[in-house]
């Protein structure tokens, strides 16, 4: 009895209990791990496919000529042979086939072949790709064995880092995972602890209020970091997610995750305070998470949004977390290099916790 009360011990006991509880809660595991992983899997596989132009070869077209043979070996063209005219027409109208080619031997002598190409308005973008492929191909074929009279073109590509779709998608999914864990998890836990008088029973023990909040946060941060490591590891080893400086990059990403999560938990505290019943938590949380999910560059860069929308995107905290994550992971930036993004998140944090202190309810 004479021993002084140990606040740290109480905080850790709470963190341990909360962590066990989270690990056994299906919704937490689904939102933090399963959702982001599904998106990463989907985009990981979609991202690796290349653009292919479907080019039908007209029935009766000559096949044994340099044009068709070159097209056959072209990586961006897939030839559709042995299809009858009606099917080809149908395919062109629906855009299932992007163009039709018919090559004929020239009876007049020169040039040796005549190539007739028909595009479709149902697939204009692929049509233009084919156009430039054909131009390139034919000028190479025509210029064979002929010295250019004006200039000869030499092309080469600088070998840079390969920027894969996963390099964009993974940081966005990680950010979204942190956002939903922070907002939904925190809101539900504090609401239900309050509602079921769990917190009231805690108050009958010598535990401090700060220990309750701190213990909960500790557990959630621990859980979210495990989730983040899991996502990064899967991304890196299965989809070649770029980690420029290896472990250091991972460490920086985890530190960013903690900053982001603390900000997002602030939203969760506010939601738990203003929700009138358990069923109002999801709609209120969605109002906070969905706009950020769509507008913060989770799936595509915010540069593609219309200009009137971009200022909104640039006001959201997740935008800056995503931005900082990508810079750290792909460009190898250190935390100091993304200080501007961190600063904006900190400002959001101060603002949201000011609101949380006003709205949070203990009983």
């Amino acid at each position, binding site marked *: *009895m004479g*021993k002084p*009360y*140990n606040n740290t*011990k*109480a905080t*850790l*006991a*709470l963190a*341990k*209990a*909360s962590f*066990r*509880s989270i690990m*056994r*809660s299906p919704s937490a595991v689904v939102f933090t791990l399963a959702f982001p992983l599904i998106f990463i899997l989907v985009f990981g596989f979609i991202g690796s496919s290349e653009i292919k132009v479907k080019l039908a070869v007209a029935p009766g077209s000559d096949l044994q000529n340099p044009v068709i043979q070159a097209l056959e070996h072209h990586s961006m063209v897939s030839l559709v042979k042995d299809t009858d005219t009606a099917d080809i027409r149908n395919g062109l109208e629906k855009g299932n086939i992007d163009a039709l080619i018919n090559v004929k031997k020239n009876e007049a002598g020169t040039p040796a072949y005549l190539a007739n190409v028909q595009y479709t308005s149902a697939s204009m973008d692929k049509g233009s790709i084919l156009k430039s492929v054909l131009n390139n191909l034919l000028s190479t074929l025509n210029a064979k064995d002929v010295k250019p009279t004006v200039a000869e073109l030499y092309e080469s590509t600088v070998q840079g880092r390969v920027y894969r779709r996963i390099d964009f998608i993974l940081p966005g999914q990680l950010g979204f995972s942190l956002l939903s864990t922070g907002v939904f998890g925190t809101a539900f836990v504090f609401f*239900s*602890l309050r509602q*079921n*008088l*769990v917190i*009231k*029973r*805690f*108050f*009958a*023990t*010598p*535990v401090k209020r700060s220990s309750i909040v701190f213990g909960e946060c500790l557990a959630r941060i621990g859980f979210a970091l495990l989730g983040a490591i899991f996502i990064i590891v899967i991304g890196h080893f299965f989809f070649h997610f770029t980690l420029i400086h290896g472990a250091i990059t991972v460490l920086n990403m985890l530190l960013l995750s903690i900053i982001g999560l603390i900000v997002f938990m602030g939203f969760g505290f506010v939601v738990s305070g203003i929700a009138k019943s358990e069923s109002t938590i999801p709609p209120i949380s969605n109002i906070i998470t969905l706009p950020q999910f769509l507008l913060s560059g989770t799936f595509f860069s915010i540069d593609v949004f219309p200009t009137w929308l971009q200022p909104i995107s640039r006001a959201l905290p997740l935008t800056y977390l995503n931005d900082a994550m990508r810079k750290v992971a792909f460009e190898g930036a250190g935390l100091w290099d993304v200080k501007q993004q961190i600063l904006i998140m900190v400002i959001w944090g101060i603002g949201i916790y000011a609101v949380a202190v006003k709205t949070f309810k203990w009983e």
Partner: protein
Amino acid sequence: MSTKNAIISVKNLVKKYDDLTAVQGISFEVYENEIFGLLGPNGAGKTTTLEIIETLREKTSGEILVDGYSVEKDANKIKRIIGVQLQAAGYYPNLNLVELMELFSGLYGVDIKPMEMLEKVNLQDKAKAKYKALSGGQKQRFSIATTLINAPKIIFLDEPTTGLDPQARRNLWDLIISIRNNGTTVVITTHYMDEAEQLCDRVAFVERGEIIALDTPDNLIDNLVNSGFERKKEVKKANLEDVFINLTGKEWREDN
């Protein structure tokens, strides 16, 4: 009787909410190592009084000392020497009984063996069960086990037997008596007068926020009888509950 020490003393306790006065100036003392009952209808102010003594609620006025500590100045010291069972309290979700015990031992800052605590209330077989999966009687026993973690001087039980079947109720009485026999003071609220009569050393009747009677059950009954009161029906040597217990057995049941 004169050597009894007051471990709790309540003087002129008043609790006002916005539009009603829940407790209007009640005073009483609880003696060391007794079972003290607060009796009265719903809304009489029993729970409010209890929660103010437990430092869970602010009082409007009055003076309360618990083992010499004042509720407003030494709330934390009081919390360390009392155990509290709330009416309808919940426990942390998704945890089993052993894990909940570990949590509470951390919250109280004491080292206990969870299994030993569960054995005290005969729940060792349910160690891996979740609180939600327990029956009513098991839940109450578990709640009482959490009040014993810090080896408290006083425990507060708020309607611990409400909704329990006769067997569960009787073995809870045995548990409460054994806790008292181990030196702990017990403050209990209940609606059941037979329970108060069997269990309590002294009872206080609370009505509309005031204490209208306070004495041992024996004295209260004798006073009424002396005033000329007679039951309409001659009391038999047993009642229907005795018949029920006699027929169905008194032993602890798997589900109570």
